[in-house]
């Protein structure tokens, strides 16, 4: 049962991370940060890797770390978005897809965080 739940969370994390990168690339961001997408995709792939039991201690933190970096860069780029609005460069406000990306990235981080909590107990 635990294994099924763990696998589901890992797959969900990977899927939402990939969806996030897709939504983000379609947003009207001031300059798409390639690194954000790369870290999201890397995090997703590493989450999938967890399904194959690599057997290393704390391996569940590796995709989490990758996704945390994506979150960090995304928040940093949020400053550019806000400045663009305040400086009148962007007169339309935040695009819906950017806002959706922001929500999804938070969801991704929460799921990746949850993976780090439940992953060691997946076979119990």
């Amino acid at each position, binding site marked *: 049962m635990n294994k099924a739940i763990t696998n589901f969370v890992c797959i969900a994390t990977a899927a939402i991370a990939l969806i996030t990168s897709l939504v983000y690339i379609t947003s009207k961001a001031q300059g798409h940060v390639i690194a954000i997408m790369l870290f999201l995709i890397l995090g997703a792939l590493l989450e999938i890797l967890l399904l194959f*039991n690599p057997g290393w201690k704390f391996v569940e933190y590796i995709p989490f770390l990758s996704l945390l*970096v994506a979150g*960090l860069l995304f*928040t940093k780029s949020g400053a550019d978005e806000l*400045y663009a609005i305040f*400086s*009148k460069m962007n007169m339309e406000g935040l695009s819906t897809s950017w806002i959706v990306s922001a929500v999804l990235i938070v969801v991704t981080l929460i799921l990746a*965080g949850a993976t*780090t909590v439940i992953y060691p*107990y997946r076979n119990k």
Partner: protein
Amino acid sequence: MSKHSAERAVRVATAATSIVLALSLGAVSGARTYSSYVTTVLGGSPFTIKDTEKANKIYEARGNGMPLSKWKTKADSLVQTVAGEGIVLLKNDANTLPLAKGSKVTLFGRSSTDLVLGGTGAGGIDPDRAVDLNKALTAEGFKVNKTMWNFYQSYKGKPGYIRSNGTYMGTLPKDVHIAEPPVSEYTAAVHQSYDTFADAAIVVFSRVGGEGSDMPTGKFGDGNRYLALQDSEKQVLKEIHDSGKFGKVIALINTSNAMELSWMDQNQYGINASLWAGGLGQSGARAIARILDGTVNPSGRLVDTYASNSFSAPAMQNFGDFTFTNGQAINKRIGPANKGDKYLVYREGIYTGYRYYETRYADSVLDPEGTKANSSSGAFADKTWNYDREVVFPFGYGLSYGNSEGHPFQQQLVSSSADERGATFEVKVTNTGNVSGKDVVQLYAQQPYQRGGIEKSAIQLVGFDKTPVLQPGQSTLVTIKVKARDYSSYDAHTLKTYVLDQGDFYFAIGNNAHQALNNILASRGANPARMDEHGDPGCVHLWHNEKPIKLDKAYSGKVIGNIFQSAGLEHYGKRTGYLTRSDWTTFPKPYNKLKATDAMIHDIDAAGGYQAGDKDTSSITTKAKNGLTFAQMHKARFNDPRWEKLLDQMSVDDLVTLVTRSGQVAIPSISFPAQFMKDGPQGNNVRPYVEDGSKATGYCGEVTDASTFNRSLIHQENEAKAEDWIRTDTAGAYAPAMNIHRTPYSGRNFEYYSEDGYLSGEFAYEAVTGLQKHGVVAFAKHFAMNDQETNRQGVCTFADEQTIREIYLKAFERPFTDGHVKATMGSFNRIGCIWTGAHQKLIKNLIRGEWGSMAIVDTDMAINPILQNAGAGLEAGNTMWATSASTFHDQIVKQAAHDKKMLSNLRQSGHIILYTFVNSNGVNGLSTASRVVKVTPPWLKLAYTVVGLLCVIDLALFITLIRKSRNSAHITIESDN
């Protein structure tokens, strides 16, 4: 707690802390990039001043010393005074106004509860601080229908059904709503309330524009053609009329954009009186109340022509969105970031605003057949062109209380003289009415015109002044002096300079442009049957000029010559087809299908055209240890040799920082403190008062300012703004703004003065001198020809030299010359194909050359390193890039170290910036012994502390997790086997 549970808890805490830490790090890192901007908003300082020894502090100017609460009251009172003099009485049948004190009134129109105080963007006024009409009227003793008021205030309507007003962001057409609730939704209680508040119905219709987008010329949120009366508004007028309840119907038109107002005289609506009010500032509503009850006698005059059809100006034909037919190829060749695929052609030439309507009228009187002035070409109100059908209110129009005609003041030309050196007129103004009030003397000129010669407006404003308050029967003498340049023309083809043509020059006073023109026509013996009113030759002075006289000496003493040939399409081998009064069937059509030539694309690409200089920069000294500081240069002459020594102390990075980060970052090597420059024309709406953190005063909009026709009052208003700049610790003011109301639809007309360049220039002069008198650096903006918001980033603006000089640069000339403005904010657009910030002739030939000015030439908000290219801009003489962010800095800082030309240009720009700010409030509080040290602002310190704590917690949690993991025999990573 079991070991598993404890470890799980640690894992949960680690995950949660890590997420918060990552997001916090991102936020802090992002905010740090814009630390100057964030500091401006949150307060604090990015630098500190340390005095190495005791020395007197320097103050370019100090505040007036008044307690802040008293100052706020005084400034607020000034807002009301300006509004009181800027409101225009448009109509007053049978002395409908003033209303009796204590009248019971019903306010109609949703805008009655949401007055336009200014506009959006730089002119925004915080509506929460504004005095609303209900409060203003009640304070003045009126009894206001609260049922109606509450209905409007609580009316929700459909989503987004709220008119934009005073937000920082612009407004897009799809989001624009008149926001007038349908009359069918008025409740029974509303209908019943009419009976009790029936002395007068006051209906308020507003229009608001904003930065970043123009007003909708087509469909918008809930209507079509924004400046026309909308169906929902017609229903309101019909409701008032059909109810039969109201003794008087008064329309209050609250807009800075010329609305279509011919409905005012249509019987079906029964309007008895009407007032116009532009941007009212935070408390201008009180002035409306005082005018309604007669406490204040209206004395404002319109600064734009109010046409019956807002599309009828010839400029409207070439307003909006035009794309080169090879736009895609342009983008492919030089990149879309160049924003080089849009254009505008000013085919109307000099015939903007009243210059069109009045000149065509003059020709319809003097030579209707020869000029085809009455043809159908450009006729919007009828099949053929007729002034009285096309124009509702002429430029300069306005009534006052005191007699039944609305003109209680008699103006008499007492003495007059004019020649090639200038003109002087004395006008005796007598109040023949029964109440006290002020009058405006308007002086117009007509230059000799010959068909096929230089285009001339049949009438042009050349002088004005406002009287003091005159009691009934009282007189005053108004003297108006005019420079000859103000009644000359620019001859771009033959003499290539300004000229007083041979022939008759007429000067006339009049209550508005149309009346003055009729006075001249009468003086010229025109056929009265063709005129719409009799003129008075007694109000006219004639000067006959025997021969053409060149006026080619610039303010600086240099010779004036053509410098804007490249702004015309003809420069690129194309034909514009300008409107000419010799044949009014040349009324412009939209200039579609313009293909950019290779030469045009080359000029558009400023970034690509920049040629780097010598790589060896060793001859330019940097990082020298000369021991000079910024403050030590206070009052030093511009050519003082110590400037070079000071500049030698700066590193390449210092110079690039100073120039491309708008002086908003401290530079310790010369002890230069970060400077703050803020919007805007309606007061400092960004930085709060240092004393209590509250927002500074929101003054009236510039259209209201200009409508006062009161020079000294606007000077006084700008001195008050300077006091606010001092009290908000802000060195520079992005004001005044003086682009031209080329059409009624520009979203930003609200913060430009008028359709007339002379009037704009006169008030901009008062603004500049008022601000700078108290140490503020005024940034006259937006230089130049930024007359619409659509495609403002990069639009190629084509016009001829005469038009550019006489109409669009006219507004800037006096502030630059007599006003000695210390800075100008440029514009995003191009003149011809060249971005204004990279336009050498605009900056070096005109500003530095003809006008003899060493003002800072700043960009508009620096956001596009390709369009607003630093290399090309510096080479052309642009001085500063308006951003505190590091985008432009990062772009050129490495290049500058290996580009002698760029480094040399940076030094020249740095010299101008430092010279300007050291002789401004930017030096306040420093001493010759002051040393500026960069510090971390308090908000950033707090942010670092929070992030540091999170790091420690996260690390501690992870170590705990590792320890627990080692100690636990139960937790192992098991294989599936």
